């Protein structure tokens, strides 16, 4: 029976206090919001903590509201289900609701928060195992060892990003606010990540993710977005690949701007830049989307570190990218959806 290790637990009610605590405690201090990632990770000894600081007591850190400039402000500790079910999100940012609805199960979406999902730990077959299992093969580098069992000659860890909201929010050009005792800064979401399975967050250790901002120009009146997620079980499962797409069209139906992000194929939400370049200035036809999907697929180079054989994941990645693009443009995605999502569109 696995149990939490002992640690000091702090629950500040004020953001400045939280930042001061985080700055003042040692390196083994962790933030927690809904706890759906941290508590199991601590139980399984994937992560260690001398102190855990809960953000759930801080006033004003949760909530969804429209901003003066017409965008949307989402507090980091807002439960995932609250974000996905918020009428403004469903109406104006349907791709985000779709992505969040695909995360885990209803109870975990009620507990887990949007900030927590953006910071969720990376995953790997050789890491997400019990303590005894990892010890019995000698720990990998993400778990106190020195080797990467996925790529034994690799100097780095290849654990993959497991967030479903991150690629979608990146494709919606979201920004995040980070607060520390040194002040606050607002950066585009992709800058919060880096391509390393262990140090996957580029934010400073003393920074607290407080807010997610969605621009007005990313809403359904300005662009089209879609999200598709590949998983073994349609109802509840981690992504083995996901694709989030946003397309901004001009009055003639030409692509002015676009974003394609791939989840679970790298340690961060991976942009498909060449594919996006190919789209700009074009009127998207099915043939063009096939070409774009192929360009994006080349960015999806999955390692053998999750469910499904890597060869198969690679073979079908293009189909998922294509489905997201086609669906964003109102075409039949031509992809078999999970049973309960049959015929699902981003707004349904």
């Amino acid at each position, binding site marked *: 029976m*696995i149990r939490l290790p002992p640690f000091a637990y702090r629950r500040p009610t004020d953001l400045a206090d939280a930042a001061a605590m985080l700055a003042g405690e040692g390196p083994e201090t962790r933030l927690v919001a809904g706890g759906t990632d941290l508590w199991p990770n601590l139980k399984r000894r994937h992560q260690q903590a001398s102190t855990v600081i809960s953000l759930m007591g801080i006033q004003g850190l949760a909530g969804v509201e429209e901003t003066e400039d017409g965008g949307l402000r989402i507090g980091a500790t807002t439960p995932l289900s609250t974000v996905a079910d918020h009428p403004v999100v469903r109406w104006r940012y349907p791709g985000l609701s779709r992505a969040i609805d695909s995360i885990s199960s209803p109870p975990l979406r009620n507990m887990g928060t949007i900030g927590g999902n953006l910071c969720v730990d990376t995953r790997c077959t050789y890491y997400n195992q019990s303590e005894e299992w990892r010890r019995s093969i000698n720990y990998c580098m993400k778990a106190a060892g020195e080797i990467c069992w996925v790529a034994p000659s690799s100097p780095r860890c290849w654990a993959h990003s497991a967030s479903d909201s991150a690629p979608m929010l990146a494709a919606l050009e979201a920004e995040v606010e980070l607060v520390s005792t040194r002040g606050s800064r607002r950066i585009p979401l992709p800058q919060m990540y880096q391509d390393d399975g262990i140090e996957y967050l580029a934010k400073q250790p003393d920074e607290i993710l407080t807010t997610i901002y969605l621009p007005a120009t990313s809403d359904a009146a300005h662009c089209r977005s879609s999200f598709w997620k590949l998983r073994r*079980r349609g109802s509840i499962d981690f992504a083995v690949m996901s694709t989030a797409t946003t397309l901004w069209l001009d009055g003639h139906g030409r692509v002015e701007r676009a974003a394609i992000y791939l989840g679970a194929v790298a340690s961060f939400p991976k942009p498909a830049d060449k594919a996006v370049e190919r789209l700009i200035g074009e009127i998207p036809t099915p043939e063009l989307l096939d070409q774009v999907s192929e360009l994006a697929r080349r960015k999806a180079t999955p390692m053998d570190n999750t469910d499904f054989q890597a060869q198969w994941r690679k073979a079908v990645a293009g189909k998922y990218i294509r489905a997201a693009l086609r669906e964003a443009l109102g075409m039949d995605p031509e992809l*078999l959806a*999970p049973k309960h999502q049959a015929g699902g569109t981003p707004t349904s």
Partner: protein
Amino acid sequence: MYRWGGCSKLAELTYIGTSPPRPDGPAKASGLSQYADDVAVAGLWFGETVRSPVAHGRLRSVGWRRAAPPGAVLVTAADLPGPNGVQLIDDGWPILAEGTVEHVGQAVALVAAPSRRAAVLAAAEVEVDIEELPPVFDLSEARRQPSLYELELGLGDPEAVLDQAETVVEGEYRTGHQEHIYIECQGMTARWHPSGPRVEVSGSMQCPYYVHKSMVHAFGLPEEAVRVRADAIGGGFGGKEDYPSLIAIHAALLARAVERPVRIVYDRQQDIIGTTKRHPATMRYRSAVDAEGRLLALDVLVELDGGAFTTLSKVVLSRALLHAAGPYRCPEVRVRGRVLRTHTAPNGAFRGFGAPQVAFGIERHMDAIGRRLGIDPLTLRQRNALVPGDRLPTGQIVDESTSALACLESVARRTDFVTRWTEYQAAQTETNGTPQRGLGLSLYFHGAGFTGNGERRMNSPASARLTPEGRIAVLSAMTDMGQGAVIVFRQIAGEAAGVTFDDLEFPEPDTNEVPNSGPTVASRTTMIVGQLVARAVREVSAQVADWWGEQQPAASPYTVKDGRVVGQDGRSTPFAAVARSYLEVHDALEVTVRHQPAPGPVFDETTYQGPAYPTYAWGADIAEVEVDPDTLAVRPLRMAVAAEVGRAIHPRLCIGQIEGGTLQAVGWGLLEEIKLDQGRYLNDRLATYIIPTAMDAPDLDVELLEAAFPDGPFGAKGIGELPMDGGAPAVVAAIENATGLVVDEIPATPERLFAAQMRERSDD
């Protein structure tokens, strides 16, 4: 939507064929039920299991790494008071590893401590020194080692027919592991009485008397010194048939060492790596058929992966061989089988008990015959299906309730099978990117009750007695793990005795209170023990009524109906009042009856000839799936199921059993896969061992058919395992109908379909 085919309530019956609420329902739904880990015990300590981290090795030493943690106690094989084997078929399953370790997760040592945390920390302080030896994982390698068991049965001379036949079809079919995933993980609490060598264990189990017997064996105690009680059980599916004996012994070893009650409860990861699973199987079928696809001869080889130890493998193999020829008529049959040994956790009992594996084999093989001869799956099965009077490979003549054709008719009618199957087949080549649809058919049967002479040998008793309150207490060792015995037995007893549910009592399964009416396994609870219950209560009720008639001769004879003793004059008295009067002049009234096998031929266990089961339940499935032509992801849309159950005592629960079993079979066929890397599970938790949820389930349309079995209570047959047999071959056949891809191995994952597609394209 459900249909009740011929399931209507017979006019003269009160309870049979109705669906009253189960008495434990509210407590279970509201969380009040006390499962193994919920029961409060004063002074309880907690046990943890130290397991082998390697698949095979020489165990050099086990001990504390440093000084023993304060208060913690360590138990190893050296501390065993008796033989180091769980009492089962060959007693060869070690209680704790000794000399060698034979699979990852094998129990090597036990620790107990006053809290769960202390127990976990103490377990981490135990050092196990193992010199690794080369392990065997692969069945081709295991074939070169001695088998755990070998069996053979047959009829006629299939080899001679196969040599001469114009059409011989051959195929190899493979099925994988399956984990039970009962909701409640395994758990057991043990305590020794200070006054003497007496021990009591309670927990989550299907078979209190199996645990009892293994405790008596392990500790060398007299039978009356061991008491076993079943708590509320959160699912079993066979997984709590064999394994609870091991945990009970473990808990009792620790409780003896610390002189306090000790509880061991597995978490899900420990449960998955430690406990038994469904045997993976490789099956080779070779058949001779005539031009119409009629079976002329069949030669089958079944190989089961037994894992490291036997547990129940011999009986699983036996049941597999007895079902290997399927529900089909074939004059010349040989079925051989063996259980091979690998360095993986022992495989054991799992709903279906060997039959689902061979049902996959024979059904895929029938589809291979149809493919070769250009005969649709329905017609081929109709030509070969058993009818009353036909002979099984054991020589058993199947009885009047043989319902294979009726089951086929039911599912084919509801799905317009042949027309749509033909259309889908024609559309296979139209891959315009949209999902392809397909239909797949399976026909199956399942022998109810113990295999061979099990019931005859066991000669199970069940008892009924009057309580001081004038109720009838029904005593059996049967457990309710969710299947509904708790209400089905009330219906049977109420109907047989003519009393109401308020006139009945059902003491909890406790070896101090109830007789050994055998294990809750093998689809035997309703059919075999239910019949004992009916006979025992009917006898008690009749004796009370007869005695009342002697007191009131004017209106004699009396009958018992709706809880009242009714005379010829139409006047009646409540049964409880009459029963209390009876007890005023008699000391007690208790009736014990034992299972009586039907007269007629007896199964011969050396030749494997004769009736291996008293009767068979029958089923047919038609699955409809959608397959993405590019990703080859499969979505099961709906399934039509026909099940011939003898008599549905409780149609709602009966359908529930069939729906649940069908989904479990679909999960086994499409999703569930134990992945091993050097004998270590790669997916030992529910985030990675994927089972279907309600949201992934196909729509299930179940039709119950009834052809009464005269020796079952009110005609009922055992059906607990039947629905596990048909789902996997039906969905795989549907994938073939949709795509043309022939898959003979499950789970039929997208990767496996992709590999089949690659093979097919390279063949073109």
